[in-house]
């Protein structure tokens, strides 16, 4: 907008900031007005915030396009139109996120009490009860999946970055990428098929869930670790070799410590990705209403499956079941958010200086 005085001598008058903000303000006012009238008229029951925001944004885009078209010309108008649409796309994408977080918090808080974290669902029919058995199950199964996935993922990444050359390495990279796209339910079916063949049909136990989750987790660990190992400067490796340190010690003592922050971040992000998986656990871990600390025998409840079954099999007192489902969902969201934030903090504060 600073170029007004230079350009105006050629007959080019860009829209000033004031005009644009006025347009936006007027659009918002008109849109709110429309929805208030609709509300009074009885077409909508309550004031529709989502509708008002979307209509306001679109109105603003259209009005500023027309203004710009008249005053600034066709090309500048198209630029404004597309900028407006792209910004609207971003706002539209925020709506479900806000709505989801708001719903989860407002519906989840009523049962976000000490009973929920101290009780299982054993012998509970109506109100009361909690998700302790599911939380323990989720921690155990996710923990087991991490114990399986991290060594395999880490060593594979080391192979790909430090050793792998040629066709095998390329094949592994390719199939790791492909593996990230395996649907979670297929992973669950795989774990079921694997154990059903050896242990008989109808098998349900926790470690099966861990195996299924590992199939989903390994490729994520490999990818993130690989990226981190690639960031380690070659000079560090060369310096170590020059001092006569064997290659494997160079990797263990130089490469891994340098990239450890990034690796931990990657592992935490991959845990946050699998901790909310429902479908594979529904298939192979099943559901129980009681505590089960043994990964190797009997059905084991997990938080996502708990949420699903509380919703799907509502008893006579439906509200109690729905409340528990939402509280479970809220706990799940909180766990995932904490993992995500923690991962980002670690990568910010632990990473060695000079790498980022």
């Amino acid at each position, binding site marked *: 907008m600073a170029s007004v005085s230079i350009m105006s001598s050629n007959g080019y008058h860009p829209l000033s900031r004031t005009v644009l903000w006025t347009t936006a303000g007027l659009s918002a006012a008109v849109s709110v007005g429309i929805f208030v009238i609709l509300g009074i008229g009885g077409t909508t029951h309550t004031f529709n915030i*989502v509708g008002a925001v979307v209509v306001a944004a679109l109105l603003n885009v259209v009005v500023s396009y027309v203004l710009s078209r008249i005053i600034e010309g066709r090309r500048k108008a198209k630029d404004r139109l597309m900028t407006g649409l792209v910004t609207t796309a971003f706002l539209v994408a925020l709506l479900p996120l806000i709505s989801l977080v708001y719903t989860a918090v407002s519906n989840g808080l009523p049962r976000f009490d000490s009973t929920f974290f101290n009780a299982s669902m054993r012998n509970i029919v109506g109100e009361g009860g909690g998700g302790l058995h599911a939380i323990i199950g989720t921690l155990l199964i996710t923990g087991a999946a991490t114990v399986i996935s991290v060594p395999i993922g880490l060593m594979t990444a*080391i192979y790909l970055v430090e050793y792998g050359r040629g066709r095998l390495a390329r094949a592994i990279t390719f199939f790791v990428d492909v593996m990230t796209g*395996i649907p979670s339910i297929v992973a669950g079916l795989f774990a079921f098929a694997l154990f059903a*063949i050896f242990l008989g049909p109808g098998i349900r136990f926790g470690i099966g869930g861990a195996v299924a989750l590992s*199939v989903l987790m390994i490729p994520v660990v490999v990818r993130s670790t690989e990226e981190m190992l690639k960031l380690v400067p070659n000079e560090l490796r060369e310096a170590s070799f020059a001092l006569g340190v064997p290659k494997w010690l160079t990797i263990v003592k130089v490469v891994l410590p340098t990239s450890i922050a990034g690796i931990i971040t990657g592992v935490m992000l991959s845990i946050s990705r699998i901790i909310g998986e429902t*479908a594979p656990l529904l*298939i192979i871990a099943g559901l129980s209403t009681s505590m089960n600390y043994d990964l190797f025998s009997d059905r084991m409840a997990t938080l996502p499956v708990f949420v699903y079954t509380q919703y799907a099999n509502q008893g006579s007192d439906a509200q109690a079941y729905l409340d528990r489902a939402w509280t479970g969902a809220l706990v799940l969201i909180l766990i995932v958010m904490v993992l995500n934030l923690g991962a980002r903090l670690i990568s910010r504060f632990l990473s060695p200086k000079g790498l980022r």
Partner: protein
Amino acid sequence: MISSDQVRAPKRRGDFLFSTTALVAGIAILVVLAAVAIFLLAESLPAFLADPAEISADGSGFWGLVGPLVFGTIWAAALALLIALPLSLGIALFISHIAPRRLAQGLGYVIDLLAAVPSVVFGLWGITVLAPAVQPFFVWLVDNLGWIPFFAGPVSGTGRTVLTVAIVLAVMILPIITALSREIFLQTPRLHEEAALALGATRWEMIQMAVLPFGRPGIISATMLGLGRALGETMAVAMVLSPSVIISFALLQSQNPTTIAANIALNFPEAHGIGVNVLIGTGLILFVITLIVNMLARVVINRRKAFSGAN
């Protein structure tokens, strides 16, 4: 990392053990992927070989059952993609080229948060918030645009239709398409952009001339990865859709084609005998479909890496 033919380091046992372990881990991944295919195939063979009358009452057998499911899977995923693609490209452009530089990273993180929400929570949200919210809109669509086959009535009273599912799926695949295309857009050579601007292009013309052509292969593969995610998404579909095994293009009715994944999730806990094998068989088909989609996407990405010459 160093290749030197003159000086060879002495062979050490530690080196040998370590590199072998790494190699074994790498091969283990290939083995796992092969095992997924083999065990699924082994457990679904009985379904392929069984007498058609055993599987379904009308005697159409496994393939008669799997046809509508495959249709439903692809139909729901395609609808989701149709909604998600323009939105995510817009968001990616907004973050990479339009939002103020200082905000861009934070905004990207906000979108990534969507990817972190577990699918069962999306399902819960879809059924309790989204379906009731869009149902009046569906009624309006059927009343006013019912002559278009897609919007044919009678309208679903609950809003649990394939269109609602597609919206939920779109929200779920939006972050992955956004994240990938954002990365690609940010890689556009600075010189291309500045050249376009220097020739007098507006910002949108610059995006059209420099950013989008450069990012096209990236957009294609991001789309396919999003499609792969949508094809395999289970819980959101299982919870939101009111399912039936039919082939229908109507978007707003209470009879909707269900997807392979949702069908497995809903029926597996109670399945027994040959039913289990049939469900695993459909899972194998889903595995093959997503494998093909993902492999195509990766091939496109990898080819671009080799030939773009810009990065």
